[in-house]
Protein backbone atom coordinates (compact mmCIF):
# COMPACT_ATOMS: atom_id res chain seq x y z
CA UNK A 1 0.00 0.00 0.00
CA UNK A 2 2.81 2.38 -0.77
CA UNK A 3 1.42 5.80 -1.57
CA UNK A 4 1.98 7.56 -4.87
CA UNK A 5 5.09 9.69 -5.01
CA UNK A 6 6.27 12.34 -7.42
CA UNK A 7 9.66 12.28 -9.10
CA UNK A 8 12.05 14.19 -6.79
CA UNK A 9 13.25 16.73 -9.35
CA UNK A 10 9.69 17.37 -10.45
CA UNK A 11 8.59 17.81 -6.82
CA UNK A 12 11.36 20.34 -6.21
CA UNK A 13 10.52 22.23 -9.38
CA UNK A 14 6.93 22.65 -8.15
CA UNK A 15 7.43 23.13 -4.40
CA UNK A 16 9.72 24.74 -1.83
CA UNK A 17 10.46 22.46 1.16
CA UNK A 18 10.71 23.81 4.71
CA UNK A 19 12.19 21.55 7.39
CA UNK A 20 12.29 21.50 11.16
CA UNK A 21 14.59 19.03 12.87
CA UNK A 22 14.25 17.73 16.41
CA UNK A 23 17.27 15.84 17.63
CA UNK A 24 17.19 13.90 20.89
CA UNK A 25 20.52 13.22 22.53
CA UNK A 26 20.92 10.78 25.39
CA UNK A 27 23.54 12.12 27.77
CA UNK A 28 26.32 9.79 28.85
CA UNK A 29 25.96 10.50 32.56
CA UNK A 30 26.50 7.57 34.90
CA UNK A 31 23.09 7.94 36.55
CA UNK A 32 19.63 8.96 35.38
CA UNK A 33 18.23 12.49 35.17
CA UNK A 34 16.25 12.43 38.41
CA UNK A 35 17.44 9.33 40.29
CA UNK A 36 20.57 7.27 40.95
CA UNK A 37 19.75 4.33 38.65
CA UNK A 38 22.48 3.40 36.20
CA UNK A 39 22.14 4.44 32.55
CA UNK A 40 24.35 1.63 31.19
CA UNK A 41 23.11 0.35 27.84
CA UNK A 42 22.18 -3.30 27.36
CA UNK A 43 21.43 -4.36 30.96
CA UNK A 44 18.81 -7.11 31.53
CA UNK A 45 15.26 -5.64 31.41
CA UNK A 46 13.96 -3.73 34.44
CA UNK A 47 17.16 -4.10 36.48
CA UNK A 48 17.90 -0.34 36.46
CA UNK A 49 14.74 1.09 37.96
CA UNK A 50 13.66 2.55 41.29
CA UNK A 51 10.61 4.24 42.82
CA UNK A 52 11.47 7.56 41.11
CA UNK A 53 11.78 6.32 37.51
CA UNK A 54 8.89 3.90 37.99
CA UNK A 55 6.70 6.73 39.19
CA UNK A 56 5.77 5.02 42.45
CA UNK A 57 3.66 7.12 44.83
CA UNK A 58 5.64 9.44 47.06
CA UNK A 59 8.91 9.16 45.15
CA UNK A 60 10.61 12.51 44.58
CA UNK A 61 12.97 13.39 41.72
CA UNK A 62 16.24 15.29 42.24
CA UNK A 63 18.10 16.82 39.29
CA UNK A 64 21.45 15.36 38.19
CA UNK A 65 23.96 18.20 38.33
CA UNK A 66 26.18 16.78 35.58
CA UNK A 67 23.18 16.55 33.24
CA UNK A 68 22.48 20.27 33.76
CA UNK A 69 26.15 21.05 33.08
CA UNK A 70 26.01 19.02 29.88
CA UNK A 71 22.83 20.81 28.83
CA UNK A 72 24.46 24.20 29.36
CA UNK A 73 27.63 23.16 27.50
CA UNK A 74 25.53 21.90 24.60
CA UNK A 75 23.60 25.17 24.59
CA UNK A 76 26.82 27.19 24.54
CA UNK A 77 28.31 25.05 21.76
CA UNK A 78 25.16 25.78 19.73
CA UNK A 79 25.70 29.52 20.27
CA UNK A 80 22.56 29.70 22.42
CA UNK A 81 21.66 32.05 25.23
CA UNK A 82 21.46 30.25 28.57
CA UNK A 83 18.36 30.90 30.67
CA UNK A 84 18.98 32.78 33.90
CA UNK A 85 16.03 30.98 35.45
CA UNK A 86 13.98 28.10 34.10
CA UNK A 87 11.69 25.34 35.28
CA UNK A 88 10.83 21.80 34.44
CA UNK A 89 7.31 21.01 33.29
CA UNK A 90 5.07 17.98 33.23
CA UNK A 91 3.99 16.77 29.83
CA UNK A 92 0.89 14.70 30.50
CA UNK A 93 -0.02 11.79 28.31
CA UNK A 94 -1.16 8.22 28.74
CA UNK A 95 1.18 5.79 27.11
CA UNK A 96 2.84 2.84 28.79
CA UNK A 97 6.39 3.97 27.88
CA UNK A 98 6.16 6.34 30.88
CA UNK A 99 4.87 4.72 34.06
CA UNK A 100 4.13 8.11 35.65
CA UNK A 101 1.67 9.08 32.88
CA UNK A 102 3.74 12.18 32.36
CA UNK A 103 7.22 12.98 31.18
CA UNK A 104 9.30 15.58 32.99
CA UNK A 105 10.41 18.00 30.31
CA UNK A 106 10.73 21.73 29.80
CA UNK A 107 8.02 23.71 28.09
CA UNK A 108 8.16 27.48 27.65
CA UNK A 109 11.38 27.93 29.64
CA UNK A 110 14.12 25.89 27.95
CA UNK A 111 17.61 26.00 29.47
CA UNK A 112 19.09 27.16 26.12
CA UNK A 113 17.54 29.16 23.28
CA UNK A 114 18.19 31.28 20.18
CA UNK A 115 21.37 29.73 18.81
CA UNK A 116 22.80 28.80 15.44
CA UNK A 117 25.21 26.42 13.78
CA UNK A 118 26.95 26.59 10.47
CA UNK A 119 27.11 23.23 8.75
CA UNK A 120 29.12 22.14 5.75
CA UNK A 121 27.01 20.99 2.80
CA UNK A 122 29.31 19.75 0.04
CA UNK A 123 31.93 22.30 0.92
CA UNK A 124 29.53 25.22 1.25
CA UNK A 125 28.49 26.68 4.59
CA UNK A 126 24.77 26.60 5.48
CA UNK A 127 23.52 28.37 8.57
CA UNK A 128 20.83 26.72 10.66
CA UNK A 129 19.05 28.64 13.41
CA UNK A 130 18.46 26.83 16.69
CA UNK A 131 15.17 27.52 18.42
CA UNK A 132 15.96 25.83 21.72
CA UNK A 133 17.66 23.00 23.56
CA UNK A 134 15.81 21.68 26.59
CA UNK A 135 16.23 19.00 29.24
CA UNK A 136 13.91 16.05 29.63
CA UNK A 137 13.90 12.35 30.47
CA UNK A 138 13.86 9.40 28.09
CA UNK A 139 11.00 6.90 28.01
CA UNK A 140 10.98 3.12 28.48
CA UNK A 141 11.30 0.66 25.63
CA UNK A 142 8.29 -1.24 24.26
CA UNK A 143 8.32 -4.65 22.67
CA UNK A 144 5.20 -5.53 20.71
CA UNK A 145 4.19 -9.17 20.84
CA UNK A 146 2.01 -11.13 18.46
CA UNK A 147 2.36 -8.87 15.42
CA UNK A 148 4.16 -10.33 12.45
CA UNK A 149 6.90 -7.73 12.34
CA UNK A 150 7.36 -6.63 15.95
CA UNK A 151 5.34 -3.50 15.24
CA UNK A 152 2.21 -2.36 17.03
CA UNK A 153 0.01 -3.18 14.10
CA UNK A 154 -1.54 -6.58 14.76
CA UNK A 155 0.16 -7.01 18.15
CA UNK A 156 -1.74 -8.82 20.88
CA UNK A 157 0.02 -7.06 23.75
CA UNK A 158 3.17 -5.11 24.58
CA UNK A 159 6.05 -5.61 27.01
CA UNK A 160 7.82 -2.75 28.74
CA UNK A 161 11.40 -2.38 29.94
CA UNK A 162 11.90 0.77 32.04
CA UNK A 163 15.71 0.73 32.18
CA UNK A 164 15.79 3.65 29.73
CA UNK A 165 13.02 5.56 31.44
CA UNK A 166 14.54 8.60 33.12
CA UNK A 167 17.83 8.62 31.21
CA UNK A 168 18.77 12.30 30.66
CA UNK A 169 17.83 13.60 27.26
CA UNK A 170 18.47 16.91 25.55
CA UNK A 171 16.11 17.85 22.76
CA UNK A 172 17.56 20.26 20.22
CA UNK A 173 15.00 21.98 18.00
CA UNK A 174 15.77 24.06 14.92
CA UNK A 175 13.81 27.03 13.68
CA UNK A 176 12.16 26.39 10.30
CA UNK A 177 14.96 25.69 7.82
CA UNK A 178 14.24 27.57 4.61
CA UNK A 179 16.27 28.24 1.49
CA UNK A 180 17.71 24.73 1.20
CA UNK A 181 15.64 23.93 -1.91
CA UNK A 182 16.52 20.66 -3.58
CA UNK A 183 19.42 20.20 -1.16
CA UNK A 184 17.05 20.02 1.84
CA UNK A 185 17.66 16.30 2.56
CA UNK A 186 21.44 16.80 2.30
CA UNK A 187 21.27 19.84 4.57
CA UNK A 188 19.37 17.78 7.15
CA UNK A 189 21.95 15.01 6.97
CA UNK A 190 24.82 17.48 7.24
CA UNK A 191 23.15 19.09 10.26
CA UNK A 192 22.73 15.80 12.12
CA UNK A 193 26.33 14.82 11.25
CA UNK A 194 27.47 18.23 12.52
CA UNK A 195 25.60 17.75 15.80
CA UNK A 196 27.05 14.26 16.16
CA UNK A 197 30.61 15.58 15.77
CA UNK A 198 29.96 18.51 18.06
CA UNK A 199 28.39 16.36 20.80
CA UNK A 200 31.16 13.82 20.54
CA UNK A 201 33.77 16.57 20.86
CA UNK A 202 31.91 17.86 23.93
CA UNK A 203 32.07 14.36 25.41
CA UNK A 204 28.45 14.56 26.61
CA UNK A 205 27.00 11.60 24.70
CA UNK A 206 27.96 8.38 22.95
CA UNK A 207 26.03 9.76 19.94
CA UNK A 208 25.39 6.27 18.57
CA UNK A 209 22.44 6.47 16.23
CA UNK A 210 22.20 2.68 15.95
CA UNK A 211 21.85 2.41 19.76
CA UNK A 212 19.38 5.28 19.88
CA UNK A 213 21.57 7.70 21.82
CA UNK A 214 21.11 10.20 18.96
CA UNK A 215 17.67 10.27 17.34
CA UNK A 216 16.20 12.59 14.77
CA UNK A 217 12.57 13.50 14.13
CA UNK A 218 12.26 15.24 10.78
CA UNK A 219 9.44 17.71 10.13
CA UNK A 220 8.86 18.84 6.58
CA UNK A 221 6.23 20.80 4.72
CA UNK A 222 5.91 22.05 1.17
CA UNK A 223 4.73 25.38 -0.19
CA UNK A 224 4.34 26.50 -3.79
CA UNK A 225 7.11 29.11 -3.52
CA UNK A 226 9.33 30.73 -0.89
CA UNK A 227 6.94 33.68 -0.51
CA UNK A 228 3.93 31.50 0.32
CA UNK A 229 2.86 30.74 3.90
CA UNK A 230 4.12 27.48 5.44
CA UNK A 231 2.28 24.35 4.37
CA UNK A 232 1.00 21.56 6.62
CA UNK A 233 3.87 19.53 8.05
CA UNK A 234 4.40 15.93 8.94
CA UNK A 235 6.85 14.64 11.54
CA UNK A 236 8.78 11.51 10.60
CA UNK A 237 10.10 9.40 13.45
CA UNK A 238 12.27 6.28 13.67
CA UNK A 239 15.02 7.85 11.56
CA UNK A 240 18.05 6.05 12.94
CA UNK A 241 21.01 6.78 10.71
CA UNK A 242 22.45 9.69 8.76
CA UNK A 243 21.52 7.98 5.55
CA UNK A 244 17.93 7.52 6.76
CA UNK A 245 17.64 11.23 7.58
CA UNK A 246 18.34 12.02 3.96
CA UNK A 247 16.23 9.21 2.51
CA UNK A 248 13.23 9.79 4.77
CA UNK A 249 13.06 13.48 3.91
CA UNK A 250 13.48 12.80 0.24
CA UNK A 251 10.64 10.28 0.36
CA UNK A 252 8.36 12.52 2.41
CA UNK A 253 8.90 15.43 0.02
CA UNK A 254 7.94 13.29 -2.98
CA UNK A 255 4.89 11.88 -1.13
CA UNK A 256 3.57 15.26 -0.07
CA UNK A 257 4.19 16.67 -3.55
CA UNK A 258 2.08 13.92 -5.10
CA UNK A 259 -0.78 14.65 -2.67
CA UNK A 260 -0.67 18.40 -3.22
CA UNK A 261 -0.48 17.99 -6.98
CA UNK A 262 -3.74 16.07 -7.00
CA UNK A 263 -5.36 18.58 -4.67
CA UNK A 264 -5.38 16.39 -1.54
CA UNK A 265 -4.35 18.30 1.59
CA UNK A 266 -1.44 16.92 3.64
CA UNK A 267 -2.60 15.62 7.03
CA UNK A 268 -0.66 16.92 10.01
CA UNK A 269 0.50 13.70 11.64
CA UNK A 270 3.38 11.66 12.95
CA UNK A 271 4.76 9.26 10.35
CA UNK A 272 7.09 6.31 10.77
CA UNK A 273 10.11 5.68 8.60
CA UNK A 274 10.65 2.12 7.42
CA UNK A 275 14.28 1.46 6.58
CA UNK A 276 13.48 -1.75 4.66
CA UNK A 277 10.92 -0.30 2.25
CA UNK A 278 12.28 3.24 2.17
CA UNK A 279 8.82 4.67 2.88
CA UNK A 280 6.87 6.33 5.70
CA UNK A 281 3.48 5.31 7.05
CA UNK A 282 0.95 7.28 9.07
CA UNK A 283 0.99 7.12 12.86
CA UNK A 284 -1.25 8.96 15.26
CA UNK A 285 -2.65 12.37 14.37
CA UNK A 286 -0.51 14.80 16.22
CA UNK A 287 -1.71 15.98 19.60
CA UNK A 288 -1.72 19.72 20.05
CA UNK A 289 0.43 21.22 22.77
CA UNK A 290 -2.73 21.98 24.79
CA UNK A 291 -3.57 18.30 24.88
CA UNK A 292 -0.41 17.66 26.87
CA UNK A 293 -1.64 20.03 29.60
CA UNK A 294 1.87 21.18 30.50
CA UNK A 295 2.29 22.70 33.94
CA UNK A 296 5.34 23.55 36.08
CA UNK A 297 6.75 20.44 37.75
CA UNK A 298 5.89 20.92 41.43
CA UNK A 299 8.45 18.34 42.63
CA UNK A 300 11.47 20.19 41.21
CA UNK A 301 12.61 23.69 42.07
CA UNK A 302 13.75 26.04 39.27
CA UNK A 303 17.23 25.88 37.76
CA UNK A 304 18.97 29.26 37.86
CA UNK A 305 22.51 28.93 36.52
CA UNK A 306 24.69 31.80 37.75
CA UNK A 307 26.59 33.66 35.04
CA UNK A 308 29.83 32.61 36.76
CA UNK A 309 28.87 28.96 36.41
CA UNK A 310 27.95 29.45 32.75
CA UNK A 311 31.32 31.12 32.06
CA UNK A 312 33.16 28.32 33.87
CA UNK A 313 31.40 25.84 31.60
CA UNK A 314 32.11 27.94 28.52
CA UNK A 315 35.81 27.65 29.33
CA UNK A 316 35.53 23.86 29.04
CA UNK A 317 34.19 23.91 25.47
CA UNK A 318 36.35 22.12 22.92
CA UNK A 319 37.42 23.69 19.65
CA UNK A 320 34.40 24.05 17.34
CA UNK A 321 34.43 21.35 14.65
CA UNK A 322 34.55 23.79 11.72
CA UNK A 323 37.44 25.72 13.25
CA UNK A 324 39.22 22.47 13.98
CA UNK A 325 38.82 21.43 10.35
CA UNK A 326 40.29 24.74 9.23
CA UNK A 327 43.28 24.34 11.54
CA UNK A 328 43.93 20.74 10.50
CA UNK A 329 43.61 21.67 6.82
CA UNK A 330 46.46 24.13 7.29
CA UNK A 331 48.54 21.81 9.46
CA UNK A 332 48.23 18.85 7.15
CA UNK A 333 48.52 20.75 3.88
CA UNK A 334 45.45 19.13 2.35
CA UNK A 335 43.45 20.70 -0.45
CA UNK A 336 39.84 21.74 0.24
CA UNK A 337 38.68 18.81 -1.86
CA UNK A 338 40.83 16.32 0.04
CA UNK A 339 39.55 17.68 3.34
CA UNK A 340 35.95 17.37 2.16
CA UNK A 341 36.50 13.70 1.28
CA UNK A 342 38.10 13.13 4.67
CA UNK A 343 35.17 14.70 6.53
CA UNK A 344 32.47 13.01 4.48
CA UNK A 345 34.05 9.60 4.92
CA UNK A 346 34.21 10.15 8.68
CA UNK A 347 38.02 9.87 8.75
CA UNK A 348 38.99 13.16 10.38
CA UNK A 349 39.57 11.87 13.89
CA UNK A 350 41.12 8.64 12.66
CA UNK A 351 43.63 10.57 10.57
CA UNK A 352 44.35 12.92 13.46
CA UNK A 353 45.19 9.92 15.65
CA UNK A 354 47.21 8.27 12.88
CA UNK A 355 49.25 11.43 12.42
CA UNK A 356 49.72 11.62 16.19
CA UNK A 357 51.11 8.06 16.00
CA UNK A 358 53.85 9.33 13.69
CA UNK A 359 52.38 8.94 10.20
CA UNK A 360 52.70 11.59 7.49
CA UNK A 361 49.32 13.36 6.94
CA UNK A 362 49.12 12.52 3.23
CA UNK A 363 49.90 8.85 3.82
CA UNK A 364 47.33 8.69 6.64
CA UNK A 365 44.74 10.22 4.34
CA UNK A 366 45.59 7.81 1.53
CA UNK A 367 44.99 4.73 3.70
CA UNK A 368 41.83 5.88 5.48
CA UNK A 369 40.03 7.52 2.56
CA UNK A 370 41.29 4.95 0.04
CA UNK A 371 41.73 1.29 0.88
CA UNK A 372 40.12 1.36 4.32
CA UNK A 373 37.07 3.41 3.23
CA UNK A 374 36.63 0.94 0.37
CA UNK A 375 36.65 -2.00 2.76
CA UNK A 376 34.26 -0.27 5.17
CA UNK A 377 31.93 0.33 2.24
CA UNK A 378 32.11 -3.29 1.18
CA UNK A 379 31.16 -4.55 4.62
CA UNK A 380 28.62 -1.77 5.21
CA UNK A 381 30.33 -0.66 8.41
CA UNK A 382 31.44 2.75 9.62
CA UNK A 383 35.11 3.56 9.11
CA UNK A 384 35.77 3.82 12.85
CA UNK A 385 34.20 0.39 13.40
CA UNK A 386 36.84 -1.38 11.28
CA UNK A 387 39.04 -3.61 13.45
CA UNK A 388 42.20 -1.65 12.68
CA UNK A 389 43.56 1.16 14.86
CA UNK A 390 45.19 4.45 13.85
CA UNK A 391 48.39 3.18 15.50
CA UNK A 392 48.31 0.09 13.26
CA UNK A 393 47.87 2.23 10.16
CA UNK A 394 50.85 4.33 11.23
CA UNK A 395 52.87 1.13 11.70
CA UNK A 396 51.82 -0.06 8.25
CA UNK A 397 53.07 3.16 6.69
CA UNK A 398 56.38 2.81 8.57
CA UNK A 399 56.81 -0.62 6.99
CA UNK A 400 56.18 0.91 3.55
CA UNK A 401 58.65 3.73 4.15
CA UNK A 402 61.29 1.32 5.45
CA UNK A 403 60.92 -0.60 2.18
CA UNK A 404 59.82 -3.76 3.98
CA UNK A 405 56.59 -3.79 1.95
CA UNK A 406 55.25 -1.83 -1.00
CA UNK A 407 51.74 -0.37 -1.37
CA UNK A 408 50.41 -3.48 -3.04
CA UNK A 409 51.66 -5.76 -0.28
CA UNK A 410 50.39 -3.26 2.27
CA UNK A 411 46.86 -3.95 1.08
CA UNK A 412 47.36 -7.62 1.89
CA UNK A 413 48.70 -6.63 5.29
CA UNK A 414 45.52 -4.59 5.88
CA UNK A 415 43.49 -7.63 4.94
CA UNK A 416 45.40 -9.66 7.54
CA UNK A 417 44.99 -7.06 10.28
CA UNK A 418 41.26 -6.80 9.57
CA UNK A 419 41.03 -10.59 9.72
CA UNK A 420 42.50 -10.49 13.23
CA UNK A 421 45.91 -11.88 12.34
CA UNK A 422 47.71 -9.41 14.59
CA UNK A 423 49.85 -6.30 14.21
CA UNK A 424 51.02 -5.29 10.69
CA UNK A 425 54.58 -6.55 11.33
CA UNK A 426 53.19 -9.90 12.46
CA UNK A 427 51.05 -10.20 9.34
CA UNK A 428 54.10 -9.45 7.14
CA UNK A 429 55.96 -12.19 8.97
CA UNK A 430 53.23 -14.83 9.04
CA UNK A 431 52.07 -14.27 5.48
CA UNK A 432 55.64 -13.91 4.14
CA UNK A 433 54.84 -10.58 2.53
CA UNK A 434 58.17 -8.74 2.83
CA UNK A 435 59.62 -7.23 -0.31
CA UNK A 436 62.62 -9.09 -1.73
CA UNK A 437 65.61 -6.77 -2.27
CA UNK A 438 68.23 -9.50 -2.10
CA UNK A 439 70.39 -9.15 -5.26
CA UNK A 440 70.83 -12.89 -5.81
CA UNK A 441 67.10 -13.62 -5.85
CA UNK A 442 66.30 -10.49 -7.86
CA UNK A 443 69.19 -11.01 -10.27
CA UNK A 444 67.93 -14.43 -11.26
CA UNK A 445 64.46 -13.03 -11.93
CA UNK A 446 65.92 -10.11 -13.92
CA UNK A 447 67.99 -12.47 -16.08
CA UNK A 448 64.91 -14.59 -16.74
CA UNK A 449 62.87 -11.52 -17.74
CA UNK A 450 65.58 -10.33 -20.14
CA UNK A 451 65.81 -13.75 -21.70
CA UNK A 452 62.03 -13.92 -22.15
CA UNK A 453 61.78 -10.43 -23.69
CA UNK A 454 64.74 -10.02 -26.06
CA UNK A 455 63.11 -7.25 -28.10
CA UNK A 456 62.48 -5.12 -25.01
CA UNK A 457 66.03 -5.73 -23.86
CA UNK A 458 67.28 -4.57 -27.26
CA UNK A 459 65.34 -1.31 -27.00
CA UNK A 460 66.89 -0.58 -23.61
CA UNK A 461 70.36 -1.34 -24.93
CA UNK A 462 69.59 1.14 -27.71
CA UNK A 463 68.97 3.85 -25.07
CA UNK A 464 65.17 3.59 -24.60
CA UNK A 465 65.38 3.49 -20.82
CA UNK A 466 61.63 3.91 -20.29
CA UNK A 467 61.09 0.47 -21.82
CA UNK A 468 62.52 -0.92 -18.55
CA UNK A 469 59.00 -0.70 -17.13
CA UNK A 470 57.91 -3.76 -19.10
CA UNK A 471 60.79 -5.80 -17.65
CA UNK A 472 60.12 -4.55 -14.11
CA UNK A 473 56.52 -5.68 -14.58
CA UNK A 474 57.67 -9.12 -15.68
CA UNK A 475 59.94 -9.45 -12.65
CA UNK A 476 57.14 -8.32 -10.33
CA UNK A 477 54.79 -10.87 -11.79
CA UNK A 478 57.34 -13.62 -11.39
CA UNK A 479 57.94 -12.63 -7.75
CA UNK A 480 54.24 -12.23 -6.96
CA UNK A 481 54.59 -8.50 -6.36
CA UNK A 482 57.18 -8.88 -3.66
CA UNK A 483 60.18 -7.46 -5.52
CA UNK A 484 61.77 -4.14 -4.57
CA UNK A 485 60.89 -2.25 -7.76
CA UNK A 486 63.64 0.39 -7.42
CA UNK A 487 66.33 -2.24 -6.98
CA UNK A 488 64.98 -4.26 -9.92
CA UNK A 489 65.25 -1.19 -12.13
CA UNK A 490 68.86 -0.63 -11.07
CA UNK A 491 69.72 -4.25 -11.81
CA UNK A 492 68.10 -4.11 -15.28
CA UNK A 493 69.92 -0.93 -16.23
CA UNK A 494 73.22 -2.29 -14.88
CA UNK A 495 72.87 -5.30 -17.16
CA UNK A 496 71.64 -3.47 -20.28
CA UNK A 497 72.89 0.10 -19.91
Amino acid at each position, binding site marked *: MSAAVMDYDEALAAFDPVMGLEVHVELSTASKMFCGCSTAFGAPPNTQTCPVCLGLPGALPVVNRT*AVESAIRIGLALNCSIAEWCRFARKNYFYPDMPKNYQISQYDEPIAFDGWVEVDVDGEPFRIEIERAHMEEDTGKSLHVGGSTGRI*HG*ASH*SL*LDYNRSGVPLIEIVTKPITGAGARAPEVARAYVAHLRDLLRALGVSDVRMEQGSLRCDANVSLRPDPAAPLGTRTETKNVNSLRSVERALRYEITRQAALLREGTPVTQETRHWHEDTGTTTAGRSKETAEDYRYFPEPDLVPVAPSREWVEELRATLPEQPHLRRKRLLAEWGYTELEMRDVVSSGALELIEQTVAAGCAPQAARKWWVGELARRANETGSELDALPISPAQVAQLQQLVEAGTINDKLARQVIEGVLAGEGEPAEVVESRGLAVVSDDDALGAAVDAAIAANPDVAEKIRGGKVQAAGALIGAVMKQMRGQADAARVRELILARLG
Partner: protein
Amino acid sequence: MALTPEDVAKLAALARIDLTGEELQHLAPQLEGILEAVASVQQVADADIPPTSHALPLTNVFRPDEVRPSLPREDVLAGAPAAEEDRFRVPRILGEEA
Protein backbone atom coordinates in the same frame (compact mmCIF):
# COMPACT_ATOMS: atom_id res chain seq x y z
CA MET B 1 -16.00 31.68 30.79
CA ALA B 2 -18.57 29.15 29.66
CA LEU B 3 -17.49 25.52 29.93
CA THR B 4 -19.58 23.25 27.74
CA PRO B 5 -20.18 19.55 28.36
CA GLU B 6 -18.10 19.05 25.16
CA ASP B 7 -15.09 20.76 26.78
CA VAL B 8 -15.45 18.52 29.80
CA ALA B 9 -15.79 15.46 27.56
CA LYS B 10 -12.50 16.33 25.88
CA LEU B 11 -10.72 16.81 29.22
CA ALA B 12 -12.17 13.55 30.45
CA ALA B 13 -10.92 11.74 27.35
CA LEU B 14 -7.40 13.19 27.81
CA ALA B 15 -7.44 12.08 31.45
CA ARG B 16 -8.88 8.67 30.49
CA ILE B 17 -11.96 9.14 32.67
CA ASP B 18 -15.11 7.58 31.33
CA LEU B 19 -18.03 9.93 32.05
CA THR B 20 -21.72 9.56 31.13
CA GLY B 21 -23.65 12.39 29.48
CA GLU B 22 -25.39 12.99 32.78
CA GLU B 23 -22.11 13.33 34.62
CA LEU B 24 -20.80 15.74 31.98
CA GLN B 25 -23.86 17.95 32.47
CA HIS B 26 -23.33 17.79 36.21
CA LEU B 27 -19.57 18.51 36.14
CA ALA B 28 -19.45 21.32 33.58
CA PRO B 29 -20.94 23.98 35.90
CA GLN B 30 -18.83 22.72 38.82
CA LEU B 31 -15.60 23.11 36.84
CA GLU B 32 -16.80 26.50 35.71
CA GLY B 33 -17.20 27.52 39.32
CA ILE B 34 -13.56 26.55 39.95
CA LEU B 35 -12.41 28.59 36.97
CA GLU B 36 -14.36 31.59 38.23
CA ALA B 37 -12.67 31.31 41.61
CA VAL B 38 -9.25 31.28 39.92
CA ALA B 39 -10.26 34.23 37.75
CA SER B 40 -10.98 36.29 40.85
CA VAL B 41 -7.44 35.61 42.09
CA GLN B 42 -6.11 36.70 38.71
CA GLN B 43 -7.83 40.06 39.13
CA VAL B 44 -5.63 40.74 42.14
CA ALA B 45 -2.46 39.44 40.47
CA ASP B 46 -1.07 42.42 38.62
CA ALA B 47 1.85 42.42 36.19
CA ASP B 48 4.26 43.22 39.03
CA ILE B 49 3.39 40.03 40.91
CA PRO B 50 5.31 37.05 39.53
CA PRO B 51 3.30 33.85 39.24
CA THR B 52 4.20 31.32 41.92
CA SER B 53 4.83 27.70 41.00
CA HIS B 54 6.70 26.66 44.12
CA ALA B 55 6.09 27.43 47.75
CA LEU B 56 9.81 27.38 48.66
CA PRO B 57 12.19 30.13 47.51
CA LEU B 58 14.81 27.61 46.39
CA THR B 59 16.71 27.10 43.15
CA ASN B 60 19.44 24.73 41.95
CA VAL B 61 18.80 21.70 44.10
CA PHE B 62 21.03 19.08 42.54
CA ARG B 63 22.44 15.66 43.28
CA PRO B 64 25.88 14.44 42.17
CA ASP B 65 25.99 12.09 39.18
CA GLU B 66 26.46 8.92 41.20
CA VAL B 67 24.92 5.52 40.61
CA ARG B 68 22.88 4.14 43.50
CA PRO B 69 21.45 0.65 43.79
CA SER B 70 18.26 -0.01 41.85
CA LEU B 71 15.37 -2.11 43.11
CA PRO B 72 15.58 -5.91 42.72
CA ARG B 73 13.67 -6.90 39.61
CA GLU B 74 11.30 -9.21 41.53
CA ASP B 75 10.19 -6.24 43.61
CA VAL B 76 9.81 -4.08 40.52
CA LEU B 77 7.67 -6.61 38.66
CA ALA B 78 5.67 -7.41 41.80
CA GLY B 79 4.00 -4.04 41.23
CA ALA B 80 3.12 -4.79 37.62
CA PRO B 81 -0.43 -5.78 36.72
CA ALA B 82 1.13 -8.60 34.68
CA ALA B 83 4.69 -9.53 33.70
CA GLU B 84 6.23 -11.55 30.89
CA GLU B 85 9.88 -12.07 29.89
CA ASP B 86 10.99 -9.86 32.83
CA ARG B 87 8.96 -6.99 31.43
CA PHE B 88 5.71 -5.22 32.31
CA ARG B 89 2.92 -6.66 30.23
CA VAL B 90 0.30 -4.18 29.01
CA PRO B 91 -2.75 -4.55 26.75
CA ARG B 92 -2.13 -3.85 23.11
CA ILE B 93 -1.64 -0.21 22.30
CA LEU B 94 -4.01 1.19 19.72
CA GLY B 95 -3.74 4.25 17.58
CA GLU B 96 -0.02 4.50 17.14
CA GLU B 97 2.88 2.78 15.49
CA ALA B 98 6.08 2.77 17.48
